[in-house]
């Protein structure tokens, strides 16, 4: 080991530790002077506030820790919805930008330029207040297919009421496991005998048949609970029963996915354009069908270019979801770094937990995407 190499690193480490030490010492002294105590004990205290929308049961008698979980799950929910829609819109628009049809590629181009150049917070406000202005009051709404009600108070959809839900879930798990085995078998068969097995159609068949069997023989039963209008006052109505998606969630997910999709579209365009023409021509010349060219030659190479920048966009979307606080969607920032912080006054503790949570979320997404990127990378033999 060369001391000259290690010394600068040790010094840097020392400086970093000193800076952190100074800040924490400074905070400690200041807090002591102002009579503020430090500790995470408040997490088990009763929260005594309610949240409008949560995935787990929550009311004011639950602890601050549970309020944290409520916020975290809501953040994850809107991020997952946002990521799914952003990816779908992004891929479609990205491919549309490459279209030879002038109208299609210009429309896609205008969409990308328009949405990515307006600040996200403005877009969130726009969609939220536009939605509030445009959506009908509960009593004026026209049901969609007789069971969906889109109103200013939220999107009311029917809920399934299950009997023996666990057996249904087991049947799906069983289907997934058998699909994995069939895939392994199909690969072996192709390597040994050169015969391809139609894995996709078998998989879809399994996913339909096994749950269906659980309905027929497993005693699984589902009934639909349709929302019913309820009168609150002479002029106020709402819906009861079913599942309610608040307008805050809908407009936030919409704004996030429309905004992030523009960046993903550019990643997709760049990825496909990054595969050289010769590849496609070579693939066609050995007799692959256009579908096979896209699936076996172009996409695997394009994905390697698309995935790393898209990972960044997923991370951005997750972090941007914290703008939810502006429109009353109860995400981590609103519930925990907002209400809980105000009610307890524990700024340092709560902000540190919130920061650490966003860091962990981002790192998890990043680890997953890196794993996927590695999986599809060229494996040189």
């Amino acid at each position, binding site marked *: 080991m060369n001391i000259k190499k290690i010394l600068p690193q040790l010094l840097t480490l020392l400086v970093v530790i000193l800076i952190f030490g100074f800040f924490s010492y400074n905070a400690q002294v200041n*807090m002591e002077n102002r009579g503020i105590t430090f500790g995470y004990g408040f997490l088990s205290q009763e929260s005594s*506030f309610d949240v409008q929308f949560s995935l787990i049961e929550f009311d004011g008698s639950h602890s601050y820790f549970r309020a944290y979980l409520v916020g975290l799950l809501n953040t994850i929910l809107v991020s997952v919805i946002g990521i799914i829609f952003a990816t779908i819109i992004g891929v479609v628009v990205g491919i549309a930008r490459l279209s030879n049809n002038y109208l299609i590629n210009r429309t896609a181009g205008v969409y990308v330029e328009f949405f990515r150049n307006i600040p996200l917070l403005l877009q969130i406000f726009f969609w939220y*207040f536009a939605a*509030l202005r445009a959506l009908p009051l509960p009593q004026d709404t026209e049901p969609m297919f007789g069971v969906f009600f889109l109103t200013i108070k939220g999107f009311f959809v029917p809920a399934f009421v299950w009997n023996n839900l666990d057996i249904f879930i087991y049947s799906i798990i069983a289907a997934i496991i058998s699909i994995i085995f069939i895939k392994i078998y199909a690969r072996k068969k192709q390597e040994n005998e050169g015969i391809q097995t139609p894995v996709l159609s078998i998989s879809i068949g399994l996913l339909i048949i096994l749950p269906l069997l659980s309905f027929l023989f497993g005693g699984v039963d589902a009934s639909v609970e349709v929302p019913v209008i309820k009168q*609150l006052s002479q002029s106020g109505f709402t819906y009861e029963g079913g599942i309610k998606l608040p307008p805050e969630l809908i407009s936030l997910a919409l704004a996030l996915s429309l905004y992030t999709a523009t960046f993903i579209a550019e990643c997709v365009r760049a990825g496909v354009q990054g595969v050289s023409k010769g590849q496609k021509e070579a693939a066609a010349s050995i007799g692959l069908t256009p579908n096979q060219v896209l699936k076996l030659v172009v996409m695997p190479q394009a994905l390697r270019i698309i995935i790393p920048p898209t990972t960044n966009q997923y991370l951005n979307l997750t972090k941007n979801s914290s703008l939810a*606080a*502006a429109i009353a969607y109860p995400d981590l920032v609103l519930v925990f770094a907002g209400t809980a912080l105000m009610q307890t006054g524990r*700024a340092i503790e709560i902000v540190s937990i919130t920061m650490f949570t966003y860091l962990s979320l981002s790192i998890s997404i990043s680890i997953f995407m890196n794993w996927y990127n590695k999986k599809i990378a060229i494996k040189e033999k």
Partner: protein
Amino acid sequence: MFKYLKQLTSLVAMVAVLFTFTTETMAAKKSKTLKNTQKKGFVRCGVSQGLPGFSNADAAGNWTGVDVDVCRAVAAAVLGDANKVKFTPLSAKERFTALTSNEIDILSRNTTWTLSRDADIGLTFVGVNFYDGQGFMVRKNSGYSSVNDFKNGISACTNLGTTTELNMRDFFNSKGISYEPVTFEKADEVVAAYDAGRCDTYTTDKSGLAAQRIKLSSPDDHIVLPETISKEPLGPVVRQGDSVWEDIVRWSLNTMIEAEEYGVTSANADSMKTSDNPAVKRLVGAEGELGAALGLDNDWSLRIIKQVGNYGESYKRNIADTGILPDRGPNELWTKGGILYVPPAR
């Protein structure tokens, strides 16, 4: 090492003070906030982001309101000019952090005095400048005439991070009504969402309801229900640990209220110097040495009354004449059937 350095500097400072024969009093020396304020030449005051009657800026950026007047009174007392105030608009979420982290020196932002806020997070409430309570606003055509008409599934818009959020839960829980809380960070968004029909009711302090009603698209279509579901004593707040500054803010507010009690107004304050009543003479600085106890000169209270006016004048100018709450209700003097009662300035 640092410890000794600190002691050494304070020793040097003390010696310097002794030898320069400054007129600085003991109180001023003890109060870091007072010293800093005098050095800067303005009072740093945290206010709301716009609540008519309490703290609201006009198009030219001039702040008015009863909360604003508390800061102006302190500026008049400490700096001699009620206009030497720097206002910082704060959301409910930011307000306490701004105060404890030294961004502002007085928080005068319709803030409810509660035990946990006073004791737990490094704050000290100095008094009450408005007695309020939480109420509900609903649409007139809803037919609601009382909170007892509320039904399960009602949605309520309010501000995030306020006592309102907690009172609302206590209230609906005690009535056994399930409700949907929709909480926003800024008051303007609460009003916009309620106005659009997102919520069936808008709940906050009654003074706030009266003030925000003006911002609705058709204010006459809305009413405030008669019930008051909580006590909300609103008052100015300072950082814990500077008792002299705390006293200055407290007695600036008390002076305004006491001036009303003795009939001293901005117009007649000067002539009151020759009053027969010693309490009035003390109030305008013609008798006693009350200013010195706070580290101020003896005209501090006279300046407050002359430049800002007494509490009644401030209320009339900001809340009554603007049509927000013409009736003073509990915010009337104790001598006139209200609950405004301050310790004597003597």
